[in-house]
């Protein structure tokens, strides 16, 4: 016992950093300046609050008889989400393998393909919807195409990063037994990445169900169209009904999907 408690040094005080304060002041200044510059006004935001309450009261009394009209549209929405999740994820699966640097070692190929992916990912889903409505016309096909591209973007990003984190050991072993590239993918890579893929596809499905309810707003099919119609005609009781069924369906799908993903990762 060479050092007793008394011999130990006291924990030194952390050094006071002047720069931290400078940054805080700069940020507050920036906030004030941008509020002034864009003429943001909080009182204005709350000015129409009484009207909000009125609409909310109406929505809180949903028109139950409207359910018969709303549910078929909701089913269409879910169909759109399923089709686009399946197509988008499958495309993403192949693409992710091509841009994962531990699978494809050619930096030029991965670089170019990643650049393309990043461009696709920057387009928001509503904009995609508008583009496809313009191309294929109003209807669920436009919505499906928009969601397919959107799914692709979500799954590719998550999935290729998951592929790049796998244990390289099994691949080394497959190489050592004399296996080729395809053997490596089937025996060493696939078992490690498949759970991630299914998990991300389910996650994309959750997002798609939510996103597809909005897409109808711009004419891309699904329940969003009814949402817009009822709002335009001030039928807030019907709007309330739509919101209620959408809420329930999203809740159930999210719950099931979350549980499924937890089970997969075991």
């Amino acid at each position: 016992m060479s050092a007793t408690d008394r011999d130990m040094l006291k924990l030194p005080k952390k050094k006071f950093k002047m720069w931290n304060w400078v940054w805080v002041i700069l940020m507050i200044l920036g906030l004030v300046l941008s509020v002034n510059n864009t003429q943001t006004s909080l009182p204005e935001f709350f000015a129409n609050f009484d009207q909000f309450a009125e609409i909310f009261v109406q929505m809180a009394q949903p028109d139950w008889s409207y359910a018969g009209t709303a549910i078929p549209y909701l089913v269409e929405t879910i169909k759109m989400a399923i089709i686009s999740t399946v197509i988008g994820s499958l495309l993403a699966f192949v693409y992710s393998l091509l841009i994962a640097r531990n699978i494809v070692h050619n930096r030029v190929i991965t670089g170019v393909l990643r650049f393309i992916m990043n461009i696709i990912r920057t387009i928001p889903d509503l904009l995609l919807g508008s583009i496809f409505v313009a191309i294929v016309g109003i209807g669920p096909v436009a919505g499906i195409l928009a969601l397919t591209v959107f799914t692709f973007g979500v799954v590719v990003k998550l999935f290729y990063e998951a592929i790049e984190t796998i244990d390289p050991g099994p691949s080394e072993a497959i190489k050592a037994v004399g296996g080729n590239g395809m053997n490596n993918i089937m025996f060493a890579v696939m078992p490690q990445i498949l759970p991630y893929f299914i998990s991300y596809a389910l996650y994309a499905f959750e997002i798609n169900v939510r996103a597809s309810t909005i897409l109808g707003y711009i004419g891309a099919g699904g329940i969003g169209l009814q949402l817009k119609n009822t709002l335009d005609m001030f039928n807030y009781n019907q709007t309330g009904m739509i919101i209620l069924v959408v809420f329930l369906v999203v809740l159930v799908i999210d719950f099931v999907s979350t549980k499924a993903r937890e089970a997969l990762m075991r």
Partner: protein
Amino acid sequence: MAEQPMIEMKNVTKVYDNGTVGLKNINLKINKGEFVVIVGLSGAGKSTLLRAINRLHDISEGDILIDGESITKAKGKNLRLMRRKIGMIFQSFNLVKRSSVLRNVLAGRLAYYPTWKTTFNLFTDKDKQRAYEALQSVGMAEKVYSRADELSGGQQQRVAIARVLTQRPEIILADEPTASLDPKTSRQVMEDLKMLNEKYDMTVVANLHSIELAKEFGHRVIGVRAGEIVYDGKMEDTPQSVFDNIYNGGKGKEED
């Protein structure tokens, strides 16, 4: 006339892309049926030496012959067929943790099949039986349908040995096979390697940290320091001072 060596390294030099010298002018002959242990400090080049033999690492200069045939010059399918003759055991086992033990062991047969057959999992009953028999000889038969990550480290290494046995290679490279195991399981794993060496006449080249295990199982010792072979001799003729030299970074040598 001496018999043809199983492994022959001629003036082998390996320089990594960042300029680090991994191997310096290595000349080495290993005959069929030998049990060779390579000893040396971490970073001395033991792993690089082993991985050069089956070309998991490419060498910069020189040539490596496996059973008289150059693996350095082999390409594509030819290279894969040569690797089929060389099994490998890894420090971290390198099993696919989410796959079953059977599937991991069957992977040893991959290079015996056309790719499309293995892609659809069309292994013959004979090979499945072979895999099961390999598991029996390392005492892991009852785990055949377990998932690899349910096994302990020692059990995983024995599955890896079963994989090598199923591969039926002529050479086995073992890269620190016991470094992540406790002393008791280490000994079991070494016994398994000994079994492959004696029963199946496979040539074993093993990197070992443990001098004790090296002395007990090796027939021949190769000492490696800073990418060079500094000792090569029969185990029974090797005095303790050789090990002391190798592990003391050459300090002992200067005193000699």
